[in-house]
């Protein structure tokens, strides 16, 4: 069972839950499982073609999966997924 950390901007879609547990062998499966539990997240996480919304970053523990294998990135049982909105770093 993986833990998914939900950012404030998505919590209205999870009934206020800050953390959701879900199962899956890779990031895509875990996020789909989240969308099954909380259907309001589906449209926010995924585009119509099933790819990740470009303004959503998903981290496997602390690593952005987009530069790993994206939604195919394997997930182990005790991993945490962290969903964060894309924000400009300050400079």
């Amino acid at each position: 069972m993986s833990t998914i950390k939900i950012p404030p901007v998505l919590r209205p879609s999870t009934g206020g839950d800050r953390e959701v547990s879900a199962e899956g062998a890779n990031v895509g499966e875990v996020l789909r499982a989240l969308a099954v539990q909380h259907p309001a997240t589906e449209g926010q996480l995924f585009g119509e073609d099933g790819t990740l919304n470009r303004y959503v970053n998903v981290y496997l523990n602390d690593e952005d999966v987009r530069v790993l294998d994206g939604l195919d990135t394997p997930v182990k049982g005790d991993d945490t997924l962290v969903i964060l909105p894309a924000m400009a770093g300050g400079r």
Partner: protein
Amino acid sequence: MEGITNRPCGGRYGDIVESIGNTPLVELKRLSPKPGVRIYAKLESYNPTGSVKDRVARGLIEDAEARGAIAPGQTILEPTSGNTGISLAMICRRKGYPLKVVMPDNVTEERTQLLRMYGAEIVYSPGDQGSNGAVAKALEMAEADASYYMPYQYGNRANPDAHYNGTALEILEELDEVAAFVAGLGTGGTLMGNGRRFKEHDPDTAIVAAEPLQGELVQGLRSLDDGFIPPIIDLSLIDRKIFVSNRDAVVWTKRLLEEEGLFLGVSTGAVAAIATRIAGELDEGNVVFVSPDDGWKYLSSGVYTKPIEQLEDEGVLESASFW
């Protein structure tokens, strides 16, 4: 008496703008995880206004001048959380352009002071909207008034080019190989410009981004579509992208001071945390990271003088903007 055997003086320049760059690469022997893996910090605080952004600001203005995009005396407008504004303020002052900077109202006091000292006008955006808020406000202002020139560091090629043509070449002058290059991810300029040059030199060089873990207080977005991705960022150049909490950034900033005697800014702590982690994964090789600035601008935050537990209790780690 022997002559100077190591290096000549830092060079002779026609003016302060010309002296930008050529910063030292310093080995961090105490932080190296094992023999054969060497960690180097490129100390960008050695630039005239004290940060890596001097390279970028010089590039932005000189590129605009070369293209005929700005007229003498035209007002420059730019969203910046501080360092770029400070660099632009110095260069604009030197070259005669009035400057307006847009930044979040939760940056440290020293940044505000420096900007005013150089004669820049500051327009504040809400701190809880972070840099996204500053960018949005600046774009609004630029659209409403065509007399402004906005360099727009987030989307201007001159930003990464300053690194491609400067920082990266300086590093390659000094080291035969670079196993990993680590830098903070803000506008993306440092990573893109250095990344492109290192990959051209050796495709096996790992380009690693350390990014700030934005606290919940800073995330103030109404919807995911309020998010922002700097146009210059091309993720295909990046091999690893890892977030670092304010807490870890502060812990490592203190370690750099205590173990290596380096008084550096808090974003450097974040980058060092990742650089040492990457170094630990290597059997051998050089890991180079960029330190954007030193610690003077962050003194008022208490990071260097208070224990981490006290900073946590006081809420400093949640609300301060260190990047």
